[in-house]
């Protein structure tokens, strides 16, 4: 365990008094550069906030003890209601802390802008969130996968997101996220993994009775395996039927398709005139 992990783990420990590290699912167990930046930012805020919170945690029991009604030894000054020195400290410490935090916030937010690709030549994927399922379209590879996102672990990926009917939100907690997928609109999300592996992905926005099922697997494969996998998928897949969404919803969809229909994503994301909203 790196020192940086101690604080959040302690927080979890404090939360229920039991070690929780067994469940490596959230962004605290980062497996990609975006999630790692989120984790580091999270931890740095905790340290900064300690400047404001720790004095109170120490001072409160002391004051309660010293100034208790029965037997407290502290002096009683009924009319003590102002102290310029204390007031200056009370205002300036949080101002300074928030100042630093604001500086941090600005840089972290801009550097993780989901509209800026993480690296050169990203893998382009279009994701369509539908009732109970996710469709991933790979325009350059000409295939479609259902509920499974195939990433090349040596390349960053750039997802374009949309949703079929209601608002959804796409996240792969250990890699990156989340960003809303909205019907009639396109948004973007960057994904990248430090190492090959399988990472859970999900919709986080309530969308109806099937909401708890709206999950997908993200498989980050070493480059050569990835190419082989794409080839194999292409070989095994049939053409994309026009009513693919209905079929999947009925439960008789396949795991992958050939994307003859290059416009599927554009059509679903079309109704809005403004596209990505920047």
């Amino acid at each position: 365990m790196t020192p940086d992990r101690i604080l959040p783990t302690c927080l979890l420990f404090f939360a229920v008094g039991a070690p929780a590290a067994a469940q490596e699912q959230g962004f605290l167990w980062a497996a990609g550069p975006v999630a790692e930046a989120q984790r580091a930012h999270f931890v740095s805020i905790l340290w900064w906030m300690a400047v404001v919170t720790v004095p109170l945690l120490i001072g409160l029991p002391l004051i309660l003890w010293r100034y208790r009604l029965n037997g407290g030894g502290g002096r009683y000054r009924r009319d003590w209601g102002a102290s310029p020195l204390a007031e200056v400290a009370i205002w300036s410490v949080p101002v300074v802390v928030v100042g630093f935090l604001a500086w941090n916030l600005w840089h972290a937010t801009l550097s993780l802008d989901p509209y800026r690709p993480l690296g050169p030549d990203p893998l382009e994927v279009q994701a369509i969130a539908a009732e109970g399922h996710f469709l991933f379209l790979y325009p350059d590879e000409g295939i479609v996968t259902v509920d499974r996102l195939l990433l090349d672990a040596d390349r960053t990926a750039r997802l374009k997101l949309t949703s079929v009917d209601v608002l959804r939100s796409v996240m792969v907690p250990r890699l990156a996220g989340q960003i809303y997928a909205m019907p009639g609109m396109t948004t973007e999300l960057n994904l990248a993994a430090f190492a090959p592996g399988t990472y859970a992905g999900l919709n986080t926005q309530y969308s109806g009775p099937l909401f708890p099922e709206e999950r997908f697997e993200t498989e980050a494969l070493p480059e050569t395996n990835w190419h082989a996998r794409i080839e194999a998928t292409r070989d095994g897949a049939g053409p994309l039927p026009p009513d693919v969404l209905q079929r999947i919803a009925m439960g008789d969809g396949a795991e992958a398709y050939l994307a003859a229909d290059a416009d599927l994503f554009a059509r679903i994301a079309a109704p809005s005139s403004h596209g990505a909203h920047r």
Partner: protein
Amino acid sequence: MIGLFLGTLRWDDVTFVEFWRTPDLNNAIAAAAAGLLVLGVVATLILLTVRGWWRPLWRDWLTSLDHKKIGIMYVALALVMFARAVAEANVMRAHQATAALDAGLVAPDHFAELFSTHGTIMIFLVAMPLLTGIMNFVMPLQIGARDVSFPLLNAISLMLTAAAAGLVMVSLVLGHFSTGGWSGYPPYTGADISPGEGPDYWIWALTLSSIGSTLTGMNFAVTLYKRRVQGMHLFRMPLFCWTVLCTSILMIFAMAPLTLATLMLWLDRHAGFHFFTVGSGGDMMNFANLFWLFGHPEVYILILPAFGVWSEVFSTFSGKRLFGYLSLVYATMAIAVLSFTVWLHHFFTMGQSANVNAAFGIATMLIGVPTGVKVYDWLLTMMFGRVRLRVPMLFANYFLVTFLLGGVTGVLLANPTVDYGVHNSLFLVAHFHNMLIPGTLFAMLAAIHLWFPKAFGFRLHEGWGRAVFWLMAPGFLLAFMPLYAMGMMGGMRRTAYFSDPLFRPWLWAAEAGAVLILAGFAALVVQIVVSVRRRDALAVPAGDPWDGRSLEWLGPAPAFEFNFAGEPKVEDVDAFTALKAQGEAYRRQETYEDIEMPRNSAVPVVIGALAGLAAFAMVWQAWATAALAFAGVWAVVIGRSFVRDTERTIPAAEVEAAHRAWLADVAAATPVHRRDELTPENRGLAEEPL
């Protein structure tokens, strides 16, 4: 023809009929809840009839325009609604703890209905009426006023809120409530996906309650500007009044976007408009903006009065002047102003540019500054004091500690970088409950303990009060700390079942916490019953059980109907403390004057009933009924404007008699040391501190 009056309402919509047709566990739970409601109503009606309480209920309460009684009715309404909402929370928790995959107690749609009603009720029909009730009761007394500026409007606000509560209650028995959460985002709540009556229940309940809140905000702001007694400058107002002022101003401006958002949603649903629909130029992002343009100030509407209560509690139970009064005033105003500039943090993930997110993130964190200032001002209020850990003070100190955690997680969420990872997760649920339970709810419980004697003439039983605290305080931690953890592990809100078995122990812990909170609520009910039984031993007729500092403690407990016999003198922030120190608190008056008070009126009840009927009819698309009821509301308003004889005079002799009777009580009471304030010796007269 019948359709015009009954709309789409059918037999099958009755929850019991639904259960009759499909008798499964899910429908059984729904029918049981509906049955409890019906039983409760019937039992209440029988009780009122058997005891002959109809007349006093009507004469002394429902038609009363007295701000104190209106305040008490608000609190009573809130407690009833709390019983339902906290029970629902328990059902949700029990369901999640037992549900692996599809099973569990309730069907997924029913689960969605539960979190929607729970959230809607807790915000609009528990937290809002609780704090409106406390503000109503306390604020006019604290500024030395006889009533609010517009007593009739005050009662109308109450009745509109009650109508909203009635509407949500009816949804238990007739049809279903929305499944779209308390925030009701389209397109999910649009006509295509949610065609039923659910979202309409949500829309009209919110409309009724937000009209009530707008009127309340106006009424309180004007009262604070225009009804302060001579000598009570703005900067001599107790801090609680400052928070009431800021909250009122927020209410005046924040409710409009909500009313519009829900109106637009209704037009989309039923008139084919395109505000939020996909296509034809509609844009659901408009809804997010409008809703949170209301929603964020709303959060501060909920927390500012709590800050006010904590300020009163810390200084009263430390026997000391509030530290940093000016700081606290400016911090409150800063929070109120900033609260209009941060709404976008509720959807950092909607795909706007990074610059916009960063700007709103920083604006959000700025609120941390005045908030941090407040915390330290409260800490220093206890310093050099004589701190007594009575029930309100237990809650206050618990709040101080838990609020730190809520503040830290709030700052975390203000960072888009972090929010991307925990938005929509149980981490967020834990954060806002962290603010709403130790913040708002516990503040209101503390307020009830603090001011109960002034309302009813006797203290609440301290032992049972501690039981409430010792059940609720660990209950909150147990219920919500696991949610922080689960949220960081990828557990999302509004999830009916977690298929990951690793969540199971955390869910059971959360369930245990929810049970403790429910038990705490039960203890509160017991406490009230016990206190009523022992009211003689707990009585504080002289009116000042806690060695209070502001004007509301001047006068007997319960308070005079007309609040003050004469005009109290104000020369300090702690006006009552100053009066006591000068020996002027319990002086006879040379002369007494006639006092004009508003006459009782049935108008608010009728308006509430008609508005509730109109809303109910709108839910079921019974247009004729809705139109008639709506016209009825305005007919009553216009009719009332022709009534001239709205005031009643309390003759000077009566005022004098009441005042003398109180002074006799004071004379009969022995002053008590703070050490003995929990004993029956405490008749409401405080010993001069040395």
